[in-house]
């Protein structure tokens, strides 16, 4: 059997006395589009933070492409190919759109190269610009390339954040509520773009989403978290009819 | 990039406009003498006193027809008792006003900082009261009209042992001041040579206001004299706090004490303390008495040592220029170096081969809230 691209084994995260994640275990196959749903405070974003390394788990291990990354710092995980976006947009707001993209490309030449205007510096900067422009064009952001990121309309900023994540050339992309705040049409077109990209970049995507229509329509598989535990896993249809999920969302009927 | 160039152009135009204001303006009708003093800040009473003395002397010189047929004019600059400011101001005196000669500074540390500048421009610097030995070692353009700390310290030590019968000395010195450090070491050297013992040496930094910790330590080693080579602000507080801690030992200091501020701060605590200085208005010689009365007339107060030194210094400088017949640096310097038996109100001034003046030390005792003449110690 092929090794899954991401394997999370028995992760437990605790903040003070509060258990944010409890024995969470799942894996993601290469090329999959996995959705994570669950009510407020279920631990979805904490799960992302744990996978990217911003939060270290109390127990459990995380494997990426078969490699144990549990104790790697976040920037190394990013270099291995795990990219993410944030629930409340974390763009570099005073940098231009193009620079936001270039940032994710690492440092392809020695740091002193620009001091002496070395040829390698000019060559690599040119290459970076070219690939940044290509990416911007894909996301229809090219006309904005010289603008400060914070001056973009909200929808464009959302797309820029995804584009920036892709500039890392990730293998695994974690999207935290990509359609939040977008109108229905915008949400659908964004998801269509993502679908295209997934093919183009041979990406694996994990998605936290509240917009159920998006989740149901695009995800191949869903995981439902509640109180930090996985309470259901399956296809969208299975999840939609799972009584535990309904209960988590709508509340306990039986007790009234 | 274009914006940068425009901005820097604008900037330099502004600079240019501001700086063209600094060009030479006046014809050299008068002889200009630069004076640099701490007129404000920590040690301002020194500066103010010297200024009074210098200005009194200036009046007299100009009343008698000036020097070389020209009036003498003072360019007095304030350095705020700060080294940095002093450097800037002296540079201005040297390069913008192009004075042939500078009187100042009062404080050893500041004089040491500006002396190299004067030496570099070969403009004589005559300090009325910087007593630290290193000052005149800076170079052959640096003079002083007062004694040096080696003499002052050893004279004070002699006084402590011979007149006050002290055997165990505590020292509390200001580590921020060259004057204080030099004086303390000169005192300690002689004190030990003469059979005394320095039982405790403590330090403070100018600007401190609480000395109880150091005084408590000194008190514990039970000295019969405490030598405090500092400047008046801290000295006043030290005297006061020492007496509050029930320290009974004699307190002794140098010319840094010579300011009414000591009495003002320490009040009754200062009673019975001794300090050495350059001058006492109570001396009987007619020259001194005349100076005292003229000074009183003009300023309505008794002159202190610094005023007297300021007075002497300007007089001495004018006489040297007269003898040189020119304001040219080299010649004036040579004449200054030749000064012999110049009769000043602070005693006869003879400039020695190290460009220092050899003069007696006057010891004053504070009695009934006033400094009174106690004894004089010859070099």
């Amino acid at each position, binding site marked *: 059997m092929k090794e899954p691209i991401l394997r999370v084994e028995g992760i437990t995260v605790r*903040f*003070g006395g509060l258990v944010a994640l409890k024995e969470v275990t799942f894996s993601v196959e290469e090329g999959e589009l996995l959705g994570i749903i669950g009510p407020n405070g279920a631990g979805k974003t904490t799960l992302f*933070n744990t996978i990217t390394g*911003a*939060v270290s788990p109390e127990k459990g291990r995380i494997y990426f492409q078969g490699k144990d990354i549990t104790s790697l710092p976040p920037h190394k995980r990013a270099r291995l190919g795990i990219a993410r976006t944030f629930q409340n947009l974390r763009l570099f707001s005073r940098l231009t759109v193009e620079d936001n993209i270039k940032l994710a490309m690492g440092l392809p030449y020695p740091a002193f190269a620009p001091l002496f205007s070395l040829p390698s510096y000019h060559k690599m900067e040119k290459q970076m610009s070219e690939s940044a422009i290509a990416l911007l064009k894909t996301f229809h952001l090219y006309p904005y390339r010289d603008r400060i990121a914070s001056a973009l309309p909200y929808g464009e900023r959302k797309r820029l954040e995804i584009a920036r994540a892709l500039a890392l050339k990730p293998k695994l992309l974690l999207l935290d509520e990509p359609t939040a705040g977008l109108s229905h049409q915008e949400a659908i077109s964004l998801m269509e773009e993502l679908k295209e990209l997934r093919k183009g970049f041979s990406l694996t995507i994990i998605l936290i989403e509240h917009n159920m229509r998006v989740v149901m329509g695009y995800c191949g598989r869903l995981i439902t978290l509640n109180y930090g535990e996985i309470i259901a896993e399956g296809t969208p249809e299975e999840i939609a009819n799972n009584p535990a999920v309904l209960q988590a969302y709508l509340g306990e009927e039986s007790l009234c | 990039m274009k914006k940068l160039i425009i901005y820097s152009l604008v900037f330099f135009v502004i600079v240019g406009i501001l700086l063209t204001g600094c060009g030479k303006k006046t014809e050299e009708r008068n002889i200009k003498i630069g004076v640099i003093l701490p007129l*404000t*800040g*920590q040690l*301002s*009473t020194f500066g103010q006193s010297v200024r009074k003395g210098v200005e009194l002397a200036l009046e007299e010189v100009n009343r008698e027809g000036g020097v070389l047929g020209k009036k003498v004019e003072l360019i007095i600059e304030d350095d*705020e*008792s700060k080294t940095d400011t002093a450097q800037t101001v002296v540079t201005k005196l040297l390069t913008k006003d192009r004075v042939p000669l500078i009187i100042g500074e009062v404080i050893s540390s500041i004089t040491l900082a500006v002396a190299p500048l004067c030496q570099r421009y070969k403009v004589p610097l005559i300090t009325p009261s910087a007593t630290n030995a290193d000052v005149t070692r800076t170079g052959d353009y640096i003079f002083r009209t007062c004694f040096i700390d080696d003499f002052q310290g050893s004279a004070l030590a002699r006084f402590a042992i011979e007149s006050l019968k002290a055997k165990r000395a505590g020292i509390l010195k200001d*580590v921020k001041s060259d004057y204080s450090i030099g004086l303390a070491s000169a005192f300690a050297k002689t004190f030990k040579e003469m059979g005394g013992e320095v039982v405790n040496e*403590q*330090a*403070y*930094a100018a600007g401190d*206001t*609480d000395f*109880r*910790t*150091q005084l*408590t*330590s000194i008190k*514990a080693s039970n000295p019969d004299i405490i030598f405090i080579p500092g400047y008046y*602000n801290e000295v*006043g*507080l030290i005297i*006061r706090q020492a*007496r*509050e*801690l*029930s320290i009974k030992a004699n307190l002794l200091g140098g010319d840094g004490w010579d300011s009414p*501020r000591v009495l*003002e*701060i320490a*009040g009754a605590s200062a009673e019975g303390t001794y300090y050495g200085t350059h001058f006492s208005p109570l001396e009987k010689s007619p020259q001194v008495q005349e100076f005292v009365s003229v000074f009183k007339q003009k300023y309505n107060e008794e002159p202190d040592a610094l005023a007297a030194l300021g007075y002497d210094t300007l007089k001495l400088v004018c006489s040297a220029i007269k003898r040189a017949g020119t304001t040219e640096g080299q010649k004036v310097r040579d004449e200054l170096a030749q000064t012999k038996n110049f009769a000043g109100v602070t005693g006869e001034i003879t400039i020695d081969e190290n460009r220092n003046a050899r003069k007696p030390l006057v010891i004053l005792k504070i009695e009934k809230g006033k400094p009174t003449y106690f004894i004089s110690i010859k070099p």
Partner: protein
Amino acid sequence: MSLFFQQLINGLAWGGIYALIAIGYTMVYGIMQLINFAHGDVFMAGAFAGYVIAQLLPDKSSLPSVILVFLSAMLFSTFLGILIERLGYRSLWKKNAPRLSLLIVAVAISLLLENVGLMIFGAAPRSFPSIIPSRSFSLGSISFTNIQVIVILSSLVLMVALQLIVMRTKMGRAMRAVAEDSEMSALLGIPRERILSFTFALGSALAGVAGVMVAIYTPQINPLMGILPGLKAFVSAVLGGIGSIPGAMLGGFVLGEAETLVSAYISSSYRDLLAFLILIFVLLFLPSGLLGKGVAEKL
């Protein structure tokens, strides 16, 4: 041994003074996460207010004039504290400006106060009139003055009073509530801005008293006298755990004693080094201070 106790008494007086100033730092930090650099200068202003009033009084050392000097110093620094908060910080605070801007404003206000002081009073130090004539007492081989006793006792009394205000009164309760959760306090109808002014007023009043105390204790004042005690008091607040009022008090006394012991047994020139070494040590290894509660860093 008596030397040691003598030094402890010397340190205690400064400890009390640091503690009084530190309380102002810590309270303001608790509410608006601002290091109010101007606080040391409020302390200086208090000393000068006392000085001016004392100059005007005919009978300087009578009890009513002593009380008047202290009261006027308190009133003036309270007024100044409120003014600083109103004109300097409030608009930025309301706009939720970056904390860096607030910090720079604090530095600027500090510069402003110092130089206004310098323009009015000049840089040369001034003697503070002895409104309380000093008397020495001896207890065995330990001697102390009535002024030391007054400084230590009144700083303790003030601290107890402050603790009562903060723990027992309505305004104190509201202060703690705003410090803990400012938005929630507003939702309960608590007027946050008034509470903020009140906090500045309290801290400044204490600093003003501390100013007069230092003025009587040393007895010398100058417009830059607030800088170093201000920084030291701030170190005390950090040492005690910034945001914690009992911490600030404890930190003040610990620093006062530590400084005295270092000057007594090592060298007085290392005294200032100590404060800053403590500062760095606490920041790196004990970020919540002696009494502060650890707060996890937010992502």
